[in-house]
């Protein structure tokens, strides 16, 4: 069962030496952090490594968290930098957040699903598939906006860019996601015919 204490209360307890309070913080945020890491890593093993690395880094720097932003915003900035440096280390072909015209990615992380299972082939299945095909930055910005409960300003803070730039990037990411989704659905319709 997860703690009902706020993030700040859990941080205070952690700083006072209570490690179980930090375990509660990890439990609270792990699902989102893991999803965000998966947007960059595109496979579960690397995403798990990034997630673990992030939480250890966050623990080390917890005393430096200035509490001017939400803990989640601060944590997502760590996820972003950790994921980017991990990608660089692993020399996985990825593009910069400013790169708009790169070819569409990579490994389909929904490949583990049973594609012949008709139940899986709902619109949400295609949506997840389309997100998996987006560039990591596009997928991350959409995940942060829709699932991270982050405002444009908070996303800007987490990614270290201007709020207006986030707005433009979010618009473009949505466009690409829409196009991908339509393409996947069209492809599926053709296959059925």
């Amino acid at each position, binding site marked *: 069962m997860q703690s009902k204490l706020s993030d700040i209360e859990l941080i205070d307890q952690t700083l006072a030496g209570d490690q179980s309070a930090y375990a509660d913080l*990890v439990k609270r945020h792990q699902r989102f952090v893991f999803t965000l890491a998966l947007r960059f890593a595109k496979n579960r093993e690397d995403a*798990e490594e990034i997630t673990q690395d992030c939480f250890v880094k966050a623990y080390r720097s917890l005393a430096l968290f200035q509490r001017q932003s939400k803990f989640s915003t601060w944590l997502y900035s760590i996820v972003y930098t950790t994921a980017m440096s991990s990608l660089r280390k692993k020399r996985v072909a990825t593009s910069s957040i400013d790169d708009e015209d790169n070819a569409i990615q990579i490994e389909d992380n929904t490949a583990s699903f049973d594609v012949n299972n008709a139940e899986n082939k709902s619109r949400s299945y295609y949506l997840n598939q389309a997100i998996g095909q987006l560039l990591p930055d596009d997928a991350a910005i959409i995940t942060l906006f829709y699932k991270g409960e982050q405002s444009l300003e908070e996303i800007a803070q987490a990614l270290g860019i201007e709020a207006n730039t986030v707005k433009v990037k*979010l618009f473009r990411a949505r466009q690409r*996601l829409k196009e991908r989704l339509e393409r996947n659905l069209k492809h599926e319709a053709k296959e059925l015919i």
Partner: protein
Amino acid sequence: MSSIEEKLWDYIDGSCTPAEQETISLLIEQDEIYRAKYLELLTLDSEFAAIELDEPPMALTYNVMEAIRAEHAQKPLKATINLGIIKGISLFFVFTIVVLLIVSLASIHWSAGSAGSLLANFKLPDLAKYLSGPVIKGFLFFDMILGLFLFDAYLRKRSISKQS
């Protein structure tokens, strides 16, 4: 100039000014193209919001806490020494030195003689008297022990760095 979609997304996100919001809502009411696009984007928005988060491995929290515990255990002793204690000890020594200095300066009789007479009365100690055979041998023996100790410490450090 922003496209219809861009304006509509701003409207949906609530990131436009009240004046823009009013204009767009009027356009949605009156313009068929705007209304169709708005409904399309609204559907997409609710679909994007319904994206499910991925489930992390069951042992993730345990692994994180284990990594943190391991990091704590590996911390060298010098990193865990309280800096306050070190500062306290240094402060004690500085204070003692300052007090001793003040006491010795206060106990000097400055009027006892001039600088010239002090220098004239000053005699260098006869060092040859102290440098007898056993003293030199003892000094050399101490040097040799110290040298061996430092050499041993150097070799140990080298083998540790090679292992790591």
